[in-house]
């Protein structure tokens, strides 16, 4: 049986160093300043103390990790909570955290070895009983938002104070990756019991920072956890996270020196940022991509040749350059190049080849200009721009593009009713790529809008990807899965959206990750 243990995985510090070096650092101003930014990221002697001011764009609905649902919540949660399993920032491969190792004695049992000597902020110990209490709450809490993530979980068995077994109803090897997400955050069972409904406003985890206060819509404040299990961490005395919903205002507050970090910078702002001397940009590709779903259950796009033609017709490099400016990367599959499940062969299936596309359209029985395809999208300038580009590429190979547009809800409703041949929308990624492909392509999933079976082999491969557990075996299955999806051309991947974060020059050791989830707890401030 495969085993991932702490000894085999890279050390925490090595991961952080590699992450910082792997990220693209765009320093404002001169090349010298850029070099300085890179050097600063690598600098090895952290300075202790200081309070970081990191702007987050949305007030959380709750700080209870298992009943909240907003993507931006992770920025707050990751300061106060540790997850059972963490991930490498670049490949998202699972690495030890509260669980030091995990094994599959059989396909329906996942055994977690727990880190010893860890205590929650309220002084109670983190142990197997605490893990069991957390999972039972996730399964039974009426407002639990993680029930679907752990749908395969039947029961939790305490084997020893530091060993716990998760018993599954059916094999599901996406579970370790699910434990890197919301379901992996561990709360103090004592605090959960005592605080009940008010827990979400006063959370207790094992993380680097302890909760201090939450002024609604204004700021969330956390302070250093003196008993943190990672030796010598955290470096900061505390973090103030002001909540500023407007990204431009947040960015301005960093340029003005009021705050240190601002998230979600618009790619079009980059040239202006270059002119600012006080700000460094961290740009990192994420799993979030611009793409189109295809309704492959009805004519004309039930014809594989036409789906392939569309995939050949689009110059993804040119598309990315226009839509993203100087950042981002073309997407050829739903898996970014640095991810552990990436497959080069699948990604090179459709080079930009308008002649090939024209030939396929002709082969499918359409004279140039005779084929009309309808695109569904929510009406906004960004989507309009993207559709205009795609429309021009399709026009060049003899496919006319018409559109169905309106509000997000109206067009989604029409799309569900079978209006439109493809739909432009972003895909935000899932902790485990098996979840992405199951959602996109299984006939049981709402994202497979026509509920058609794309190919039996593909369905079997998706099922297999959730039952295999050894990392090498999973990698092989995903290579097959990605190639099959490309062969049948079931989606139109376009480009990966980067996560762009503006940092004050004092911020050190900010490590962006492929999941696009900002984390502040490991940061330190230069003098």
């Amino acid at each position, binding site marked *: 049986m495969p085993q991932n243990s702490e000894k085999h995985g890279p050390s925490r510090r090595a991961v952080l160093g590699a992450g910082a070096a792997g990220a693209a650092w765009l320093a404002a101003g001169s090349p010298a300043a850029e070099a300085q930014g890179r050097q600063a990221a690598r600098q090895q002697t952290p300075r202790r103390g200081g309070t970081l001011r990191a702007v987050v764009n949305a007030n959380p609905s709750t700080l209870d990790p298992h009943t909240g649902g907003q993507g931006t919540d992770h920025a707050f949660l990751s300061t106060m909570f540790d997850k059972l399993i963490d991930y490498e920032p670049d490949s998202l491969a699972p690495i030890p955290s509260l669980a030091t190792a995990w094994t599959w004695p059989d396909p329906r049992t996942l055994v977690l070895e727990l880190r010893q000597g860890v205590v929650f902020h309220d002084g109670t110990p983190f142990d197997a009983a605490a893990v069991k209490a957390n999972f039972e709450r996730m399964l039974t809490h009426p407002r639990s938002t993680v029930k679907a993530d752990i749908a395969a979980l039947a029961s939790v068995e305490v084997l020893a104070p530091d060993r716990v077994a998760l018993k599954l109803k059916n094999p599901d090897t996406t579970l370790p990756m699910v434990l890197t997400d919301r379901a992996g955050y561990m709360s103090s069972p004592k605090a959960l019991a005592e605080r009940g409904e008010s827990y979400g406003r006063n959370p207790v985890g094992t993380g680097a920072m302890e909760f201090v206060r939450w002024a609604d819509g204004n700021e969330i404040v956390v302070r250093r956890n003196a008993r943190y299990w990672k030796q010598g961490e955290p470096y900061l005395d505390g973090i103030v996270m002001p909540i500023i919903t407007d990204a431009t205002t947040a960015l301005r507050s960093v340029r003005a020196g009021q705050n240190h970090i601002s998230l979600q910078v618009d790619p*079009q*702002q980059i*040239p*202006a940022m270059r002119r600012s001397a006080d700000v460094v940009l961290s740009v990192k590709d994420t799993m979030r991509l611009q793409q189109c779903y295809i309704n492959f259950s009805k004519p004309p796009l039930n014809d594989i040749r036409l789906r392939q033609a569309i995939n050949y017709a689009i*110059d993804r490099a*040119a598309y990315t*350059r*226009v839509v993203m*400016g100087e950042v981002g990367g073309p997407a050829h599959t739903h898996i970014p190049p640095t991810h552990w499940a990436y497959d080069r062969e699948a990604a090179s299936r459709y080079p930009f080849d308008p002649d090939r596309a024209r030939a396929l359209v002709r082969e499918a029985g359409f004279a140039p200009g005779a084929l009309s395809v309808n695109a569904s999208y929510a*009406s*906004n*300038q*960004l989507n*309009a*721009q993207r*559709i*205009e*580009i795609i*429309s*021009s590429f399709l026009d060049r190979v003899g496919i006319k593009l018409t*559109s169905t*547009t*309106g*509000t997000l809800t*109206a067009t989604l409703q029409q799309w569900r009713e079978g209006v439109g041949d493809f739909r432009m929308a972003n895909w935000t990624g899932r902790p485990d790529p098996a979840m992405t492909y199951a959602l996109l392509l299984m006939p049981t999933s709402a994202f497979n809008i026509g509920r058609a079976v794309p190919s039996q082999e593909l369905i079997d491969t998706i099922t297999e990807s959730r039952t295999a557990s050894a990392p090498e075996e999973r990698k092989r299955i995903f290579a097959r899965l990605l190639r099959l999806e490309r062969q049948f051309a079931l989606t139109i991947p376009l480009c990966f959206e980067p996560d762009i974060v503006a940092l004050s020059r004092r911020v050190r050791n900010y490590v962006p990750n492929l999941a696009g989830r900002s984390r502040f707890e490991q940061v330190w401030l230069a003098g």
Partner: protein
Amino acid sequence: MAAPASPQARRRRPSRLRVLLRDAGAVVTLAYLALLLFVAIAASWLAPYDPVRLDLTATLAGPSAAHWAGTDDLGRDVLSRLMYGAGPSVFSSIAAVMLAAMIGVPFGLMAGFFGGWVDAAIGRVTDALLSFPTILLAVGIAAVLGTSLTNAVIAIGIAFSPGFARLMRATTMAVKQELYVEAARAIGAGPVWLLLRHVLPNAVTPVIVNAGLLLGNALLAEASLSFLGLGVQPPQASWGGMLARALIYMERAPELMYPPGLALVLTALAFNSLGEMARRWLDPRSLSG
């Protein structure tokens, strides 16, 4: 020497057209509108480039000999898009105002003429419609109807109609008290005859003036809807849509916002002064004053 009150004095009074043409502002307005109308109709012959042809190798290029107003985010010629955008903007504002008048005038006429419960019923509906900001109402209607230029015109027409109804009601109430209406009624004219033959022709002047003044608002309303993605659909060019796209590139290519912005400002200004001219044309008192 003051003109004596004689038949000659009347002849010596300058014609209304002459008075208008003596006003430089009016001449400029009329010249601009004539040019605009010409461009709107002949865009497909005048425009130097295809307004929807992309050139991704020449995006966000500033003005040059080949592209007088530069190229946009997708390498399209801005001048050509401006020319093609004139048609939808100008004709849809005219159509929207005509629609608003066609809805508002009959209801206002009935409310003012019949009074009583007819007036009360129509009055409550116009009150309800007027309680929404016009643009908000238009956005709501466009969102319900679906996104297209035709629907945007319908939305603006509906949103502007209560103003016409109010105006028509007020003038009708004044006109129906006039002696000639009483006289017609006395010789046995029915309500339809009275309304169409006597009331409408004598109450319609303020409506025409109002229509002229509303053209500018309708232009901006159409641009707002296109700006919000509820009007003209891409890749077709519209001034509001061009402005919305320019907003995304405000930091990188600020020059993109000037052509559609200036076109909108100048045209709204021209429509407003056209309304003002209509008022002076139709109201003899203002000419002599």
